[in-house]
């Protein structure tokens, strides 16, 4: 099994296949990893560990102590990782970068929810939303189109390829007319912005029971489609992006809505029907605009 969950295998492995347990409280701490165990929360983490793309993964249990409610979820994992390094173990791999909720790098399934219990990114989820003594399951994004690279790190290259198929306006550098040559009505500009906020984290795909990337694709289709600058490629864009989406192994939409609930940027669920309408329109127009 390459991914902990393919679209056809969606059980919770945490409940059944615990591989090992390490108890941090039993070990001393060294430079940089020291944290008072007397205050702060104590948590049990069950984390998906998988050494590589081709290797078998399993849920592994760790106990962490001294967790401050002001820590972000990633700060908490940093604390665990410092301890693992001190103990000579390999730290838990996870993607992260800006830690401000905008780069879209981080993302994990926390207690079965993409990005956890708050409508935000994992890096902006704080430990005050958990209670002392909690057991937390931490798994990578689950989708056939996102193979696991290691532990909680998945390959989301498929999303880049969907954009490459048509998620742009062809405007080679230097060819642009004066910015005020075309006025854009404010409602259209606002709609474009609301859809352009997508950070490409992949939570929508992870949350979807079909592993669909409809919300992600629709966000770009609507963003560019409502702008006059995007009109010339309106038909080819939606047709090519939807084709790419299917080719990458993303599932189809069955109107569950979990994607929009998981989206940390509030991309509206209606954008999917907007995209379907765009698609139908493009097909009726005979494909190319």
């Amino acid at each position: 099994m390459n991914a902990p969950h393919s679209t056809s295998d969606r059980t919770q492995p945490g409940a059944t296949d615990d591989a090992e347990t390490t108890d941090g409280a039993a070990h001393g701490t060294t430079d940089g990893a020291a944290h008072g165990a007397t205050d702060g929360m104590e948590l049990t983490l069950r984390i998906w560990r998988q050494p590589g793309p081709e290797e078998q993964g399993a849920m592994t249990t760790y106990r962490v102590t001294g967790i401050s409610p002001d820590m972000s979820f990633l700060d908490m994992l940093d604390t665990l990782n410092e301890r693992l390094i001190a103990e000579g173990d390999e730290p838990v791999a996870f993607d992260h970068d800006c830690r401000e909720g905008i780069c879209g790098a981080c993302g994990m399934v926390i207690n079965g929810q993409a990005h956890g219990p708050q409508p935000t990114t994992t890096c902006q989820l704080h430990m005050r939303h958990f209670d002392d003594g909690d057991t937390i399951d931490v798994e990578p994004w689950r989708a056939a189109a996102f193979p696991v690279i290691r532990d909680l790190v998945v390959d989301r290259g498929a999303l880049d390829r969907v954009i490459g198929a048509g998620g742009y306006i062809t405007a080679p550098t230097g060819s642009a007319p004066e910015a005020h040559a075309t006025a854009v009505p404010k409602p259209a500009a606002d709609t474009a912005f609301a859809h352009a906020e997508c950070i490409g984290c992949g939570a929508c795909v992870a949350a979807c029971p079909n592993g669909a990337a409809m919300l992600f694709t629709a966000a770009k289709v609507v963003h560019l489609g409502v702008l006059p600058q995007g009109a010339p490629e309106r038909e080819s864009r939606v047709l090519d992006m939807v084709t790419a989406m299917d080719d990458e192994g993303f599932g189809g939409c069955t109107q569950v809505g979990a994607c929009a609930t998981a989206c940390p940027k509030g991309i509206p669920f209606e954008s999917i029907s907007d995209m379907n309408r765009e698609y139908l329109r493009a097909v009726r127009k005979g494909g190319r605009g």
Partner: protein
Amino acid sequence: MQDPTAAAPPYAGYEVGTPLADTRAPDGPLAERWNTRRFTAKLVNPANRRNRTVIVVGTGLAGGAAGATLAEQGYHVVQFCYQDSPRRAHSIAAQGGINAAKNYRNDGDSVRRLFHDTVKGGDFRSRESNVHRLAEVSTEIIDQCVAQGVPFAREYGGLLDTRSFGGVQVSRTFYARGQTGQQLLLGAYQALSRQIAAGRVEMHPRCEMLDLIVVDGRARGIVARDLVTGRIETHTADAVVLATGGYGNVFHLSTNAKNSNATAIWRAHRRGALLANPCFTQIHPTCIPRAGDHQSKLTLMSESLRNDGRIWVPRTPGDHRPPQDIPEDERDYYLERAYPAFGNLVPRDIASRAAKNVCDEGRGVGPGGQGVYLDFADAMERLGRRAVEEKYGNLFEMYERITDESPYETPMRIYPAIHYTMGGLWVDYDLQTTVPGLFAIGEANFSDHGANRLGASALMQGLADGYFILPATLGDYLASLPADLTPRAEIDDAHPDVRATVDEVADRLCALLSNNGDRSPESFQKELGELLWEECGMARDADGLRHALEEIPRLRAEFWRRIRVPGSGEAFNQSLEKAHRVSDYLELAELMCLDALHREESCGGHFRSESQTGTGEAERDDERFSYVAAWEFTGEGKPPVLHREELDFEDVRPSQRSYA
């Protein structure tokens, strides 16, 4: 490689080498130079461009724009980023906006005014010809981005909205809510994606440059590590472009993305590229203070909050009462007191230093006493809660999510943080470093911001370099290559220069992996960062800098003695990535401190306590220091060589800034 565990002696000093001149900027009137240069630049025949390979490292505003544009021009582009997708480069986190001299407001703006503001804002330590070009190109950037579908804020009439930003008197900042960087970057990323799909850009995500390949004195490729497989790869080209951002993470705590790093520019520096003004770093006054020792990343709060928030600390050191229990006459609104004319809206460097001073006096608030209050109580009383909510609601929400405190009820706590680095690789007017064929664009170079960058100018520079300037100058280099240049096909893994570089990289990684010490990479980055923040942060003096120059080699030696990197080099290994980056910070930090020590003046973000006016303001010394300090690497533990590029001011007359 030298024995890295032996503590190298601190720099005994530095040597002074031959002066440096920018030989590429044409003579003639300032406003004509870019036009002249574009005309004199040689062109590569369109049919020949596909035979030229250009490596671009980094996919932020500068790199993304350059990769897309060079591919559109017909070059074969090979591009790299350490992130899993080019869309995640740290430009994405820029909030405020992008400046352009459009004068849509008819408020007296012009290319010349933007040029003037930028030179003055940089405290007269930047090159006039570069800055003028930047101001000229600024207007085209907005056109380009609008054409790409960047959803800038618009007025009801459908035209673009603008706002004002710090330090200027016109409204020239274009924005997309608080996510301007994100929207501009996605525009560049989408243009780049089109080229990737068309096969004109060969994109290598999750691939980090670890060294530069120099053959016959020219940049001919890079050594990179595939971060997924761990494989060390060589990539060769006819030119190499570094668009790898700044080095703020040398301070450990900064607003930079966690993985932003200095390895590409530092390794290029070691291969012969001069590094300019490394001590010019920008500290932003309004960041959320860290909540505790566990934190390794700081979050910026927009500077706009200082329009209505009042900054204060308790009058008495050690006063730990909650803010609402501290009576008015026991509060010190220190900025309003010391700078009555500008009050809470003094420039970034002044506000940052003042906050540090009151905290050093023991009057800081919050955990660890590392914070000052930014209080909206008066604004709420004056404007009403609703008005405050309309202006700052989203920022308050973000603050509350992180701190669990509502700024409507209790004052915000803020503290300065490292935000941007003005220093970087020295480049000429063509953005070429001192290694022929190696170009540096965006924050990675030193070119346009002098000793202090103005708000909303980083995005402008990144896109100017990437979309318009590099694509015009790179062709001149490629068209001028000598006929007897070693063909790219012959620069394979068997080539001795390539072999040697690969071996050095492999040795470094092996040394990190096999050391089996007892300290994590994070612990070293933290220790170095704390030292730098203390001695080379907001205020610097000779004693502190000398102390740092003694401590850094000691810490570096300890690093190589005690570093522990678990796991293998032939796999995805984030500890190894980090350890390698930290090893380069431990070298770069020393040069930063030396540069700060040698520059015995205060200017912009570089404040030397010994060089201040009677009222505590930064005092420049134009007689002695009106130059760019470009440093040459001469070997590990050896004194570097200083090359001075004197700055001539033809159009702007340097003056002393005053805010009292």
